[in-house]
């Protein structure tokens, strides 16, 4: 069977025919059982394709991948600008920005965020005070989280703990780097921002835990 509509049936199934053609085809379908059967089959094929399950390789490919990437660290545009530890801090910073939906727009401008603009010492003093306050707030919220995390299911707590591990590592690395270079504008801002992210995450998780009670 191959009438004038046969080759257009997939377009009909996909809703891609113009109104006039669609009406004409539907008129044809009303009288052509064969085309109706094909349309039904095509719809099943589409559904079957969407339901195909992914299967992985029969052997573990990671050892070979790991071997190939060993010694081949990706080159970042900002690597030349900082010491070896700063790219890691920057990466962690991006991760932390992504942890917050409200901060996602910053991720769209990673190069601008990596540009260091020297700030007057007075501003660092303000940052230090702010950091101490944030420390205290984090400690309070951490205490609340420790008390209330039993209200969350274990998989959620696990993911949250992983995020905290990442954040805490970034904070520790920033603080260690600041010991060696206390006037570094990027590191000061990075530390303050990282702590703020932890604060935001703690507030969010605690609110959700409270809602579970």
């Amino acid at each position, binding site marked *: 069977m191959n009438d004038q509509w046969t080759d257009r*049936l997939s377009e009909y199934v996909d809703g891609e025919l113009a109104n006039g053609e669609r009406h004409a085809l539907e008129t044809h379908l009303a009288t052509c059982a064969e085309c109706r059967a094909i349309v039904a089959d095509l719809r099943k094929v589409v559904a079957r394709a969407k339901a195909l399950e992914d299967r992985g390789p029969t052997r573990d490919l990671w050892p070979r991948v790991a071997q190939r990437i060993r010694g081949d660290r990706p080159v970042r545009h900002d690597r030349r600008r900082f010491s070896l530890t700063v790219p890691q801090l920057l990466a962690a910073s991006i991760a932390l920005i992504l942890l917050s939906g409200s901060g996602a727009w910053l991720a769209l401008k990673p190069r601008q965020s990596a540009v260091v603009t020297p700030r007057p010492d007075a501003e660092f003093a303000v940052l230090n005070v702010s950091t101490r306050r944030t420390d205290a707030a984090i400690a309070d919220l951490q205490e609340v989280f420790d008390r209330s995390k039993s209200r969350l299911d274990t998989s959620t707590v696990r993911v949250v703990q992983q995020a905290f591990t990442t954040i805490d590592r970034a904070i520790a690395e920033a603080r260690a780097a600041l010991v060696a270079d206390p006037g570094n504008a990027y590191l000061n801002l990075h530390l303050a921002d990282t702590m703020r992210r932890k604060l935001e995450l703690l507030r969010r998780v605690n609110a959700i835990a409270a809602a579970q009670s």
Partner: protein
Amino acid sequence: MPRQVLEVTLTADSVAADAALAASGDATAFERLYRAHVNRVHSLVRRMLDADEADDLTQDVFVRAWEKLSTFRGESAFGTWLHRLAVNVVLARRKTLGVERGRFHAGEDSLEDVSGRRETPEVAMDFEEALSNLPDGARQVFVLHDVEGYRHEEIARMLGVVPGTSKSQLHHARMALRRYLDR
């Protein structure tokens, strides 16, 4: 926020964190990304190329991803970015093999080969196997459109053909595969 939404969000955050860490050279974070995505990538590669190429190409995809991670800016989900990269690696491989153009327009005979086997129980194929026996052009378009959800305009750009060719190949593929719906 409902718990399920939170979990999905936090899982996505975890993937984004791993992507950022991997971009800075953290191979452990990259292994987590590999474990989370290898099944999808391998399935895509296997469906678009021959099964015996799938392992090698899957490795190539992840090595390429490692090399290109610094270009991942987080505008899309990491999985979406990786998937598009995998499609590009597969298409590049096909060009290297020198089969794309020639076999894209051939294929009616191959389609008949696929449909012709269905009547013989001893060589019965399941749906995935029948898919792997489609001629290359129809197979690519079917996988990209019906399995992976790309639009004809996108597929046409990827394959260097006009959208009408993509539509035509898709229809031929579906017509051949409808014979294997129950397998």
